[in-house]
């Protein structure tokens, strides 16, 4: 197991090591809110970051399982391709932005624009999410066990949103959809795989009304 203490080791040294390593486990202590920790990892590594991180931690992750025992700054797991990123605290803005695949689990709350432009990632938030979450969301699933702020799913494409708590004003072209037995089953499996305890049947489902897919002047007021 490799150990990095960011009070003495640099983020550059850490990332270079992670980029040059194909297997194994690494621990990172004293992250101190530093930016870009463990970004660009491209191997089935286990990385445990013990403390708070700054911007873009685990950015563009592929294959690795990265756990942050603390809070995460903006853009955690942005553009994630595969693997798992788990935040044991809260996450700031743009969590999981543009993620293509893999899973992002936030055990606390997520701030605004969680899952913005998501393209296939699964994001499970045990707490609440802020406004404009799943803005322009293309593919994937955003699961919110708490409440969702205003303008949820604004200009959403084919992503699916599940919310258990209250939802503020829905964004443009986002509507509530039927929660079928198939959706309950699918959601239960996702929750189970992430270890987040919640009953799938208590969630409501949201998605695109598909009214804005092709410009139509009669829908101009919807923008």
């Amino acid at each position, binding site marked *: 197991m490799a150990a990095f203490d960011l009070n003495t080791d640099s983020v550059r040294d850490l990332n270079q090591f992670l980029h040059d390593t194909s297997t194994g486990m690494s621990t990172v202590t004293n992250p101190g809110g530093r930016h870009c920790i463990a970004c660009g990892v*491209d191997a089935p590594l286990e990385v445990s970051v013990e403390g708070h991180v700054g911007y873009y931690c685990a950015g563009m992750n592929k294959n690795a399982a990265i756990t942050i025992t603390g809070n995460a700054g*903006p853009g955690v797991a942005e553009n994630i391709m595969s693997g798992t990123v788990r935040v044991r605290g809260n996450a700031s803005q*743009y969590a999981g932005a543009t993620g293509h695949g893999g899973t992002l689990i936030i055990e606390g709350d997520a701030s605004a624009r969680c899952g913005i*432009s998501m393209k296939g990632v699964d994001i499970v938030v045990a707490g609440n999410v802020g406004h404009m979450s799943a803005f322009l969301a*293309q*593919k994937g699933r955003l699961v919110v066990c708490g409440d969702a702020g205003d303008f949820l799913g604004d200009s959403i494409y084919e992503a699916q949103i599940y919310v258990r708590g209250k939802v503020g004003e829905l964004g443009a072209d986002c509507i509530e959809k039927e929660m079928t037995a198939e959706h309950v089953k699918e959601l239960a499996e996702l929750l189970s795989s992430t270890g987040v305890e919640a009953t799938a049947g208590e969630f409501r489902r949201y998605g695109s009304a598909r009214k804005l897919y092709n410009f139509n002047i009669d829908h101009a007021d919807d923008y």
Partner: protein
Amino acid sequence: MPMTTDNKTLRPSATFPQHVLDEIHRAADQGIYEIRGFGAKRSLPTFDDLVFLGASMSRYPLEGYREKCATDVVLGTRFAKRPIELKIPITIAGMSFGALGANAKESLGRAATAMGTSTTTGDGGMTEEERQSSEILVYQVLPSRYGLNPDDIRRADALEVVVGQGAKPGGGGMLLGHKITERVASMRDLPQDIDQRSACRHPDWTGPDDLEIKIQELREITDWQIPIYIKVGATRVSYDVALAVKSGADVIVVDGMQGGTAATQDVFIEHVGIPTLPAVRMAVEALQELGMHRKVQLIVSGGIRSGADAAKALALGADAVSIGSAAMVAMGCNRNVFTEDYDAIGTAPGFCHHCHTGRCPVGIATQEPKLEARLQPEQGARWLRNYLSTMVLELQTLTRACGKTHVLNLEPEDLTALTIEAAAMAKVPLAGTDWIPGNNK
């Protein structure tokens, strides 16, 4: 007998000329702004308004064709471990697969490679054809992040964070549904046949302080190997260039309002941004003020059409220029062939700006196999290589005439302006005077 009206005796309105009347009628019929391709069509101050002061009694020219006039340029010397080394200071600008067909992208790559220069991806990601045909490929990081992935980031030769482009600073991209084939849709993670609107701002950073960290992330992912460019549409150029330097750019691309687009609102193309001519000068001044001129390299684009345009941009202080529309024209855009197909989309050779329709008569801006087959990569690359070679010869000719052994030795002192506007914008004297409008002398 019915009366006939002699149109020659009728007085048209200067406020409502025919094209304005037509546009109002079109808007009334369709209820939507005009979306089109190509760049600004209005008349703007351009590099044509500057001329070189060739050598004479006080300057010593170089012999054409005999004395060496170098054209090589290195981009990305500030932080990158592997800067880009170009043989010519003319690069190919970012144009998306989706807007352009695969054959067009491959043609661009082949020609750029043959000339020792770079080509650039666009919205929608990197195609295999493009990577294989381009020895030096710049990979764009755009607000939409369509197709963006770390594998392609790692196999790029440079990254270009696109903040804006000259045709639409402050606006996002648009690819209308009829150009969205299965392959294009798959690369963008979106359904087929829907309008794909690219975001106008990045999803995970806001402002230069964030961008500085974003660039740090990209450098970490690429182990600080490759240069990172920032591209801006020309508006508040002085501020944008200074902030790009602050954000950690190796190279700054400034795209003037003559820059092209595949599909944008006409009102955006014609009414937002500033021309390339003043943008170059403003960018150079901003770099000089920070002591970063030639340390952070400057690429200028937007309506560059000839070796003369390139020479003038370099003389004003750019390190390289980039071409997009002109490269497409070299490959056959608006060529007088397949006239019936121009007619079918309501235009004619010389006037076509119908990239947005996907029905490009010459097979460049299309995803339709029948049309795309009209541009074979070998032929497209040959045309573009010839055109680039011609541009370089023109550039060297003008540089030698000014007595310079390297194109980067051209300087503003080699230029004079033919109009007061150009003198004010480029800050070179009006021809026959020592007057630079705006200077206190």
